[in-house]
């Protein structure tokens, strides 16, 4: 009996998006109802899928063609976890959007669901070319969302964002082609098998392919020096969209973890060693660059963007080792940074909304309406981002530092993670006291009631509460990520689930 | 390819058409190079080239008919299409050229290399 639920996270958003296209453009309400309902359903399904994933990896042969010949969609703990994160953020984003953002341009909800489709598809697929396809889906949807709302700035950074990602996509195709050219397959599990059996004379080409892929994923997750696009693109993006983007960067991290625990695992052609040599310094630099960006940011959006960069650095610094503990910690931190990233972007938008032309710039000019609520939320977001207890950032950092204990890079990693903590702290304190204190919150005492803003605030609050829950239930969550990491490191499980036939190139 | 069991007359016809086609194509392009004025050059491709392709197409038709025994008549379609479009294309090129002779409004010709 095939488990069709596995494909639903892809099919549901697709059909929703199309349905939205058929709805008359005037009927805003019906669009919102459909959109929110669909995301809710998706969230529920993701939870269910997480449950199903507990029985180990399961493959779903799209088109009923056996792997490796058709495309398989694979549900395992990792993909289920990512789906959970995605749908949670999506829910927050869409709830925020229906407060008004979705009216600022055509097709917001359609694009939103298409992007969701792309993200889910990328998390689920077990085929490397199909991964490329879904990368493109989520990218082109994100272009649309970056441009949602229009404006010179958006257009220009949108173009840069698109161009950079198109270059990356080209490199992706070179890599996929190369891998097919030497292994003759596209199915990831089959690739894993064939890569392991590859004659030494092909190893050089294999390494090139792997490294090209690494560049692509590095661009996606804004690893220094490929992080350029992120701050401006995110600063330009429509707030609910950028909230969803918090997951977007994670797709790159997901891809790195997936490829290097499945296809290039077992140090095939010395690739995972090389990966570590590259990733550790790069991630460290990324973290530092992010922290410096936070300290030097001139607007809250810049602050949020660079703290996203910083958290990517932390995440990858943790993941680089590819040990069970490290991956588990990285995954926990990933969940944390999804939640808090989304929260921060929405919050910044909310603040900017209330400050007129000063918007989100770090100037003491315009006071913030509802300074107490927004200031409090910003305070909490800052705590979480910096890694102050008791929110999930702290737990994540402890887990990461614990996981790195005793590795070759422990000293560097510890120094960087803790050192940047100070920079982030100072950066957030500067920003917060400028915007919420210095900018005469005296005015905000007599608050002009904005019910919309209050509702939006609730969404942000919910996300922050999410990080609190994440740390309150830290034990359970870390158990889940431990199980996920363990499953990842035993790649035979995945291979057996996907392609019993794909055990040898002659199959 | 199996021209062996092909009726020699047909074979001759096909070969002749091929040679003629090739020749006309060559002449058309030669005109493009040789003639000094754009409008003069225009005469080459529009006529010779078109006829050149036309004869190649007919050659192919005959070839499939006699060598393969399959009635491959769809080459006619291309021929029809080419003869419909070639003069129009030529006409537009000519119009564009006339326009371009007014140097001022020329967006491309007066560019620095």
């Amino acid at each position: 009996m095939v488990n069709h639920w596995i494909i639903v996270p892809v099919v549901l958003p697709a059909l929703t998006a199309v349905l939205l296209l058929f709805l008359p453009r005037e009927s805003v309400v019906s669009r919102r109802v459909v959109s929110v309902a669909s995301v809710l359903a998706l969230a529920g399904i993701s939870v269910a899928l997480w449950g199903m994933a507990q029985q180990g990896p399961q493959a779903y042969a799209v088109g009923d063609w056996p792997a490796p010949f058709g495309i398989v969609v694979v549900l395992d703990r990792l993909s289920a976890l990512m789906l959970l994160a995605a749908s949670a953020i999506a829910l927050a984003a869409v709830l925020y959007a229906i407060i008004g953002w979705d009216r600022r341009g055509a097709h917001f909800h359609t694009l939103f669901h298409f992007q969701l489709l792309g993200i889910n598809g990328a998390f689920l697929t077990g085929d490397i070319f199909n991964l490329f396809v879904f990368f493109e889906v989520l990218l082109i949807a994100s272009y649309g969302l970056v441009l949602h709302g229009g404006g010179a700035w958006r257009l220009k950074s949108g173009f840069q964002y698109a161009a950079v990602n198109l270059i990356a996509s080209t490199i992706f195709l070179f890599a996929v082609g190369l891998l097919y050219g030497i292994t003759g397959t596209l199915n990831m599990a089959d690739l894993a098998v064939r890569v392991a059996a590859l004659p030494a004379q092909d190893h050089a080409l294999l390494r090139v392919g792997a490294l090209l892929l690494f560049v692509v994923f590095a661009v996606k997750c804004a690893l220094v020096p490929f992080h350029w696009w992120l701050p401006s693109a995110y600063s330009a993006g429509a707030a609910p969209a950028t909230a969803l983007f918090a997951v977007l960067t994670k797709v790159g991290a997901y891809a790195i973890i997936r490829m290097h625990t499945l296809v290039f695992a077992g140090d095939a052609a010395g690739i995972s060693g090389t990966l570590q040599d590259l990733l550790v310094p790069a991630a460290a630099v990324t973290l530092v660059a992010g922290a410096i960006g936070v300290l030097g940011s001139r607007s809250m959006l810049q602050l949020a963007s660079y703290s996203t960069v910083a958290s990517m650095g932390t995440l990858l610094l943790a993941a680089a080792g590819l040990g069970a503990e490290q991956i588990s910690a990285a995954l926990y931190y990933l969940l944390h940074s999804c939640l808090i990233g989304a929260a921060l972007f929405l919050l910044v938008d909310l603040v900017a909304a209330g400050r007129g032309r000063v918007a989100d710039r770090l100037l003491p000019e315009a006071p913030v309406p509802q300074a107490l609520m927004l200031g409090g939320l910003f305070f909490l977001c800052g705590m979480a981002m910096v890694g102050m207890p008791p929110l999930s950032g702290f737990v994540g950092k402890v887990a990461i530092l614990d996981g790195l204990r005793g590795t070759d890079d422990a000293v560097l990693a510890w120094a960087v993670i803790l050192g940047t903590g100070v920079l982030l702290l100072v950066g957030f304190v500067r920003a917060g006291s400028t915007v919420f204190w210095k900018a005469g919150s005296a005015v905000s005492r007599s608050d002009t009631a904005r019910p919309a803003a209050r509702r939006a605030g609730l969404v942000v609050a919910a996300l922050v509460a999410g990080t609190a829950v994440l740390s309150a239930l830290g034990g359970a969550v870390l158990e889940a990520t431990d199980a996920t990491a363990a499953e990842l490191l035993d790649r035979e499980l995945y291979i057996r689930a996907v392609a019993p036939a794909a055990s040898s190139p002659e199959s | 390819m199996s021209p062996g069991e092909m009726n020699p007359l047909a074979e001759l016809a096909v070969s002749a058409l091929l040679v003629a086609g090739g020749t006309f194509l060559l002449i058309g392009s030669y005109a493009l190079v040789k003639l000094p004025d754009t409008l003069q050059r225009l005469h080459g491709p529009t006529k010779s080239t078109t006829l050149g392709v036309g004869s190649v197409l007919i050659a192919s038709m005959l070839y499939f008919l006699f060598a393969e025994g399959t009635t491959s008549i769809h080459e006619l379609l291309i021929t029809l299409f080419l003869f419909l479009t070639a003069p129009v294309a030529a006409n537009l090129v000519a119009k564009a050229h006339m326009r371009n002779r007014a140097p001022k409004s020329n967006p491309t010709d007066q560019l620095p290399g």
Partner: protein
Amino acid sequence: MIAYASAFAFAAVSAATLLTLWRLVVGPGAVDRILALDTLAINAIAVIVLAGIVWTTPLYFEAAMLFAMVGFLTTVAFCKYLMRGNVME
């Protein structure tokens, strides 16, 4: 005999293509280059049909037809751009 004839035709088309290429390079005007492009397309059609004969396959027929269509539309578009600026005016 057909073998030789088609070989000749190939050679002729190749030569024609090179001549056209020359015109494409030296121009001088945009119009001349458009004309060269148009001619290249037609040469391409000839090559395709010839290949169909040599390989005795009808599979490339649509390609030839599409080349004819596309070549025409491309030429028209470029010319109209030169004449009017707006291709779809």
